[in-house]
Structure formats: structure tokens, C-alpha cells
């Protein structure tokens, strides 16, 4: 009798143990489903939980600084110019590693542009760093004449772009730089979405183009949501999330808000497709057109004036190819002001809730 009970118990335990791995796997899957983003394009290799409150953060300028060192190691022609902002643009990492290839110009952004043009003319690959309000702000004509019209491979690297600069206020928050650079012929314009992508963009830009490139970076710590495996190719937009109801095309750190908005909208039954449009010029027309052919509506998301930036580029392109209703998330014709970065992003209408509203509005306009 006792033996029978023992045997049965052992059998039950054995059976239970046999199924344990399967059960554990099912539980893991369930847990993953709960944490994992719905509809995220697996080929984008994003982090598993976009809404993780403990998401790792770093400013995109950090990615620039690391990318500069990577590029400098690869090629001795890389030189870095800076106008008295080595540390805050993160070009000081290059300076520490390659002091002979770091050129300090002092507070003289116009001269920085012309010297960079000369260095490129001679055969170097110059990166010039400052805040975007000064370069390409103050030195816009020098960039136009001596770099773009000259067709020289100077990399213009604008740090501290957007209202997320924070407490420094309007004078230091570049909101017009994409527009300034996008209208110059021969120019490539790239706005990376996180520090990982910024690093990739910097090294790719080093060897990309016959003409100049504008790279835009932010000051404040923003979520790192792409990974080493996330594809990055200049001129190629990436579908980060698939959806059928509306397209969201964004660039820069606010793209994270777009992805979170899409996750939250999904809970309400709205599936938004989210595209990382990191290259604003040349715009990846094909990826955007293919998406809006499916969704018939688009919301552009950028931390820039809505006039002249990514949203304008998309509107110009779609109006000629496949016109659909569009809503613009960005700064609406005003200057920035002092505050905390997150506070300002929300106050200026670029938060998750703003994007959700815009998606619903654009769907209603179909």
C-alpha cells in the first residue's frame, strides 16, 4: 500500500518534472508578451521593453564623441575642429586620444567653417563641432559658400539642438538648424535617435559623402532604445514598428515618445507604424510612401520648428507622390525657454500624449 502511494507520488513528480521545462517556457513567453512591445519589427532589434521605467539613458552627443574616436582610429585623415566647446560637444574624447588631430579655434564659428573647408580641400576629413545655434547658425553663409558650393566633405556637427537643451534657454536651443542645412544643395542631413545610433551615424558619415553632412545631437540624457544590431544606413529609413492605421515618421530622441505613443495606442486598438527617418536628406521616399499607401495618414515627429524640418520634407515629398493627411509634431513657430528637458518637451507639444492625439486626429481626417 505504502509502496503504491510512493510509486504514484514518484510518478506524479516525474511527470511534473518532465513537463516543467515546457511549463517554464510557457510562463516565460507569457511574461515576455506582457513586457515586450507589440508589433515591433523584429528586424529593428530594439530593446525589449520600450516603456521600461529604468530604461538606460545617455545623450546623443555621447554617441558622437565615441563615434569620432572610432572614426579616428580607422582613418588618419580624420581631424576634429572645435570652437571652445570640446567637452560639451564630447569632442574632447577625440582630443585626448588624438591631440595632434584636434584643432581648437576659440569662439570663432565662421572661421571654423572656413578652416574646415580648407582642410577638406587639402584632403583631410574634418568634423567641426559646436552648438547648433552657432554652427550652422552663425556661420551659415560660410557653410554655404565654402563647404556646400565647394562640394567638400566637411561634417558639420551641431550639438545642443532642440528645446531639451533645457535651462540654458532660447538662445542656446537650436530649432532651425535642420531647415538651414536641408535647403543647401549637396548637403546630407542626419538626426540620430539615441546615443547608439549617433555613434553609428558619426562613423558612417566619416566615409559617406563627396559633399558635406550635417549631424544633429542633443544635450540631455535620452532613452537608448536601439541596439548594436539595429540597422543603420545613411539614406535608409527603418520601420521600427509595424501598423496599419497611421504612420508616424520621426527623428531624434523624440522618436522614443513616438514608439511609446504607438504602444499605448495599441491598447486602444489603434496600430501605428513607426518609422525612424534619421536621414532627412536624402529622404527615404520609398519607405515612407510604402507605409502611407497602407496607412493613408502620417504624423511627423521632430524637436524642431515644424517649418523646414523633417515634417516639411515629408509633406513636400508626399504631396508630389501620394498625398495623405499629415499632422506635425514639433515646435510651432516660437522660440524655446528655460526649464527641465522633459518638462519642455511636454510644454512644447512633443510628449507621448501629444503624439497620441495627433495620430487620432490624422486618422479622423482620412
Amino acid at each position, binding site marked *: 500500500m505504502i509502496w503504491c502511494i510512493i510509486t504514484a507520488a514518484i510518478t506524479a513528480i516525474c511527470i511534473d518534472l518532465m513537463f516543467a521545462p515546457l511549463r517554464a517556457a510557457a510562463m516565460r513567453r507569457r511574461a515576455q508578451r506582457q513586457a515586450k512591445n507589440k508589433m515591433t519589427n523584429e528586424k529593428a532589434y530594439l530593446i525589449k521593453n520600450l516603456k521600461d521605467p529604468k530604461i538606460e539613458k545617455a545623450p546623443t552627443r555621447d554617441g558622437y564623441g565615441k563615434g569620432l574616436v572610432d572614426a579616428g582610429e580607422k582613418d588618419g585623415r580624420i581631424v576634429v575642429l572645435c570652437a571652445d566647446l570640446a567637452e560639451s560637444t564630447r569632442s574632447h574624447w577625440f582630443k585626448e586620444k588624438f591631440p595632434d588631430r584636434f584643432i581648437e579655434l576659440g569662439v570663432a564659428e*565662421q572661421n571654423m567653417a572656413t*578652416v574646415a573647408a*580648407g582642410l577638406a580641400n587639402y584632403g583631410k576629413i574634418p568634423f567641426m563641432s559646436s552648438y547648433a545655434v552657432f554652427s550652422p547658425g552663425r556661420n551659415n553663409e560660410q557653410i554655404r559658400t565654402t563647404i556646400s558650393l565647394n562640394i567638400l566633405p566637411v561634417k558639420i556637427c551641431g550639438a545642443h539642438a532642440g528645446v531639451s537643451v533645457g535651462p540654458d534657454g532660447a538662445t542656446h536651443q537650436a530649432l532651425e538648424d535642420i531647415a538651414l542645412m536641408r535647403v543647401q544643395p549637396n548637403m546630407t542631413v542626419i538626426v540620430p535617435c539615441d546615443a547608439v545610433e549617433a555613434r553609428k551615424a558619426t562613423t558612417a558619415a566619416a566615409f559617406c559623402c563627396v559633399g558635406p553632412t550635417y549631424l544633429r545631437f542633443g544635450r540631455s540624457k535620452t532613452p537608448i532604445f536601439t541596439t548594436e544590431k539595429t540597422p543603420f544606413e545613411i539614406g535608409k529609413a527603418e520601420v521600427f514598428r509595424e501598423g496599419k492605421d497611421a504612420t508616424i515618421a520621426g527623428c531624434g530622441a523624440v522618436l522614443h515618445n513616438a514608439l511609446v505613443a504607438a504602444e499605448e495606442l495599441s491598447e486602444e486598438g489603434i496600430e501605428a507604424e513607426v518609422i525612424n527617418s534619421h536621414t532627412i536628406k536624402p529622404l527615404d521616399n520609398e519607405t515612407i510612401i510604402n507605409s502611407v499607401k497602407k496607412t493613408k495618414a502620417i504624423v511627423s515627429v521632430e524637436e524642431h520648428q515644424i517649418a523646414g524640418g523633417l515634417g516639411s520634407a515629408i509633406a513636400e515629398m508626399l504631396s508630389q507622390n501620394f498625398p495623405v493627411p499629415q499632422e506635425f509634431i514639433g515646435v510651432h513657430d516660437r522660440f524655446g525657454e528655460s526649464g527641465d528637458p522633459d518638462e519642455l518637451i511636454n510644454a512644447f507639444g512633443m510628449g507621448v500624449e501629444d503624439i497620441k492625439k495627433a495620430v487620432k486626429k490624422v486618422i479622423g481626417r482620412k
Partner: protein
Amino acid sequence: MSEYIRSEKVKELEILANKIRQSVIEELVAAGSGHTAGPLGMADIFTAFYFHILNHDPKNPNWPDRDRLILSNGHICPVRYAAMAYAGYFPVEELKTLRKFGSRLQGHPERTALPGVETTSGPLGSGLGQAAGIAYGAKMDGKKFRVYCAMSDGEHEAGNTWESAMFVGKNKLHNLTAVIDRNNIQIDGFTENVMPLEPLRAKYEAFNWHVIDVDGHNIEEFVDAVEEAKAIFEKPTLIIAHTIPGKGIPEIEFDYDWHGKPPTPEEGARFLKELRTLGGKIESEHE
């Protein structure tokens, strides 16, 4: 007597400079717009550059070890184009296409349009920085070629010029020699009335440059100054070339009205006669 140029060569270059002035007039009459005074004033210096000073190869304008001549005040390009044509960069007949649609001789020079012009220029104040960038890169790599930058006096009212002057002084770019066309005029009048530039020499010296003043129409003196600059290793050199705007045609010399306008065909014919007869001193086979 110069140790760096024979007097026979100086005579040859003076005759050539006169031909280049004639070409400038012909170019401007054909174009119907453009600048007259500056190109005429710089004819002697551009002749000296292209036919004596520069180590260059007109048939191989992108030769990596060539000396670079950067023209900062692009509006005087008719004189550069004429000197380049005579030096063999392109056919002299092409000078007639200046400022015309489809021409390589753009109204202000463009690097990508015409091989040999080195930089795109016109907006003032940005030539010295570009010359500095080239000189800095060359110095990093131990290259031996020299970089020259021709500038106007008027563009010393632009902040960018002084930013660049400070940078060149800081980095002791002795492989760079700048030349200022000190003709005292600009569009709105005499420089010292528009915005005084003097003391120009003292300003550059304060920025750690070696400065030499020369008569910009004395080829021998200019060549000597360029050679002196080569022997100075601790500083960059500036040559202030004192020139006469409109040089060679007395009726327009010193007149700032001629900064930015071309001669009419009638004026052109008169100016050409003036140049061909050396002011009536000789007979011209053309008349």
C-alpha cells in the same frame, strides 16, 4: 637689383601684365557686367604669381604638391582668369565667355566649375580661413608646397578675416603668405571713409604676423617680398601690396566708381588703345 628675378624677366612680365590688363577689359566688355578697378590693379601681382612665383602645372591643375593660390575677394577673378589662360590652363578665347550661361568662368570663381581656381569665393572674408585650413593640413603632413592668399583691403571690415588672422598667427603657419590688395577703395567709397582699416600693418603685427609693405606694381619688389616670406619660419607673412585701382588707365585710376562696373564698348575701345600704346608713348599695330 633683385637676386630672385632677372631684370629681363621683369620686362617680359611687365609686357605680359599689360596684355592681361587688355584681356581684362575685353572680358568685361563682352560680359557687360563685373568689376574693373581691382583686376587692373592686381594684374602685375597675378602675372608675377603665374609666371614666376607659383610651382604649378597648368596641364595638371590638381597636382597634389602644387602651390595653392587662394583668391579671397573673388570679384577680381577676371585678372585671375586672364593670367590662367595665358599660363595655359584653358584657351585664351574662352575668356570671352566670362559670366555667360554655361561658362566655366563664373561671375565669381567656382572650384567645381574651373580646375585650378582652388576655392569658390566672392562673399568676402572667407578666403584666409580656407588658405589657413590648407596650410594647416599641409603642415600636419610635412608637405613642402606653399599657400598664398590674395585678399582685398575692404574685406578687413569682416570679422571672419580677423578670426582667421588670429588662427594663422596662433599656429605660426609660415607656409602661408597673404597678400592684401591695398587699393583704398570699396563699393561705397574710400576704405578710410567707409570704415577705417589703418593701422593695418600694426594690426597684423599684433596678431603675430611678419609684415612687408611693397609697391604692388613693382614686380621685382613683390617677388623679393615673397622670397623673404619663405625664409621666415616663426611667423606667417603678410605682404601689403599698395596698388592703384584701375592701374594702367589714367581716366579711371583711383576712382571708386569703377570698383563694380564694366566699361561700355566705347570706353573699352578707348581703354584698350591706352593700354596698347602705353598711354600714347608707342604706336599700336592695332590702330
